[in-house]
């Protein structure tokens, strides 16, 4: 296996980046180009992002939350508009902080093609690009930090505490948007064992079983947030 062999999934995938810190923007462009993505545009504010998406119709966008002019949440607002106007463009929101409130707004309608990650995650290049690919393919990528905040703040904490340690791990990974296969790989167990855990979790929490991964994410998040 060489580094080159790890990138086929990304081949030519069109990306638009919105990030106001030049050093990060350039780093991301380099990283994604290196991984075989096609970076159509790299912009520094929300309006330019909307314009660039309208022009290039990328498969996925990477959006910083705080950008000029107000440095509050214009990236997030732009991301929500993108979700409404270009449902086929996946959005990976990329932030210095984790705000579960942001995640909730982003996931309000559907979890398909949505990601919300801490900027720190980019240090693990492999995991970051995997999350990006998952989002681009219509999946979900939620930062483990968001998930753990949701888990600890959840009013359902009592029923979550009924789960076994392994089941809680599986629940977190599910909430991050990972597939059964990815969960199995991450926990180094068999796919069958994961399926068993998932069934156990849904039974204990009283959730209906959902077929697709991102429906499953929404179900879990709604459960935790309610």
């Amino acid at each position, binding site marked *: *296996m*060489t*580094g080159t062999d790890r990138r086929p999934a990304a081949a030519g995938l069109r990306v638009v980046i919105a990030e*106001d*810190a030049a*050093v*990060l923007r350039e*780093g*991301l462009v*380099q*990283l994604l180009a*290196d991984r075989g993505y096609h970076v159509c545009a790299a912009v520094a504010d929300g309006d330019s992002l909307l314009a660039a998406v309208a022009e290039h119709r990328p498969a996925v966008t990477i959006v910083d939350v*705080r950008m000029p002019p107000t*440095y509050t949440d214009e990236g997030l607002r732009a991301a929500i508009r993108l979700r409404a106007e270009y449902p086929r463009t996946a959005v990976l929101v990329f932030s*210095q902080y984790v705000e579960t409130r942001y995640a909730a707004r982003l996931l309000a309608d559907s979890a398909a093609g949505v990601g919300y990650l801490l*900027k*720190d995650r*980019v*240090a*693990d*290049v*492999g995991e970051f690009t995997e999350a990006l690919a998952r989002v681009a393919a219509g999946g979900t990528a939620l930062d483990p930090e968001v998930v753990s905040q949701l888990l600890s703040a959840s009013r359902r904490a009592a029923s979550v505490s009924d789960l076994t340690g392994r089941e809680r791990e599986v629940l977190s990974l599910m909430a991050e948007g990972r597939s059964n296969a990815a969960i199995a790989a991450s926990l180094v167990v068999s796919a069958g064992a994961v399926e068993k855990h998932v069934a156990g979790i849904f039974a204990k929490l009283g959730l209906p079983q959902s077929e697709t991964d991102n429906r499953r994410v929404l179900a879990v998040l709604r459960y935790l947030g309610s």
Partner: protein
Amino acid sequence: MERYAPAPVLRAALRATVSRRAGSEALYLVLGLPLGIAGFYLLIILLVPGILLTASVVGTIAGLGLLIAATQLGRMVGAGHRWLAARCLGSQVTAPAPFRPGTGIIGRIDARLRDGAAWRATGYVLVKFPLAVLGCYVALVAWIGGLFYLTYPAWWWLSGAAVRADHGTGKPAVVMNPLPVGGLHVRTWPSALAVPLLGAAVLLAAPWAVRLFVTADRWLIRNLLGAGRLSERVRELEESRASAVDDSAATLRRVERDLHDGAQARLVALAMSLGMAKEKLGDDGEPVNVTRARELVDTAHRSAKEALTELRDLARGIHPPVLDGGLPDALATLTARSAVPAGLTADIPARPTAAIETIAYFCAAELLANAAKHSAASHVAVTAAARNGALLLSVSDDGIGGADPDHGTGLAGLRQRVRTVDGRLDISSPPGGPTVVTIELPLSA
């Protein structure tokens, strides 16, 4: 007319008579009469039965209700008088703080009865009544009477032959009588011609008589309708506390922004470069892309150094280490680094507290930067001196002037920062220059 005025005193007296101030003061006394009388009577109507009922055991509750109504009316009428004084006299008396209602029925009644501002205003309305009547009378008699006397010969002539025909009967033709008793009897043309002299004298005295009443009234307004010294001080402190909170919140926001946009972003970039380099170096036994890995490590190295610089600058912005050696040293460093040649005179025998030193340092830094950016000055002088328990900092340049705290946030921000410790910032910057900014800070805060 002025040509004949023999002495400056007379000139001043004439000027006082025709001044705008004399007019508005007289107007104030006249306009104050209706409000003074109406307010007084309404108040008495509520107050007298209120007191009587409260004193009788049976009607206490109704009596207290009347008293509350009376004091609240006093507050309103007082506000009217304060407004009139502000409009006519330009008096700047701060209104008392708005009433803070209590909770529960008893609490509410209690709070109303203890409303000191309302009781003081009620007192004012009661005292204002005689003052308004007398003041208005004096203003009208002095001004209208004076003008009447001054033009008396014309009236005497106009009042007709009938009056003058009585000349021989011994009855007075016109009774000059500003007071209820006594008076001047004018019977002959020569005495009629002398009356204008009296008129002139009355007119000259009029503004001073009016001012006597106005001064007394001003004193009453300040003490009875104002916020009261203690509560004025409380208000000042509330404001300075609010601006201290704002200032520290703004500082924290700025620090957070600097961290977010600077060091944090660079560290993320650094981690990203290292992550990519790690991949290039490959796992055990994998072929190594050394050239690319070296480039990435170079980038990471650069990011790390930049992050260090940014963190150092940020730390210096929060607490300049140079201040550890005292304000004079810190100011010397600032002036030495100034883009415009700057001189420093510092005389600070006792060290101010750290908060004051920090504020003085940042003010000096900002003002020097302003001078370099906007003033086109060729020299800036910085002086810092401790005198009478205050630290005086002044930054003056020989530039083009026109600095305005209302435009641009820099000076306004400094003023706010200075106010947090009860300090003052004065700016003199006429167009064409020079600009002198003086800051006065307490030595300890």
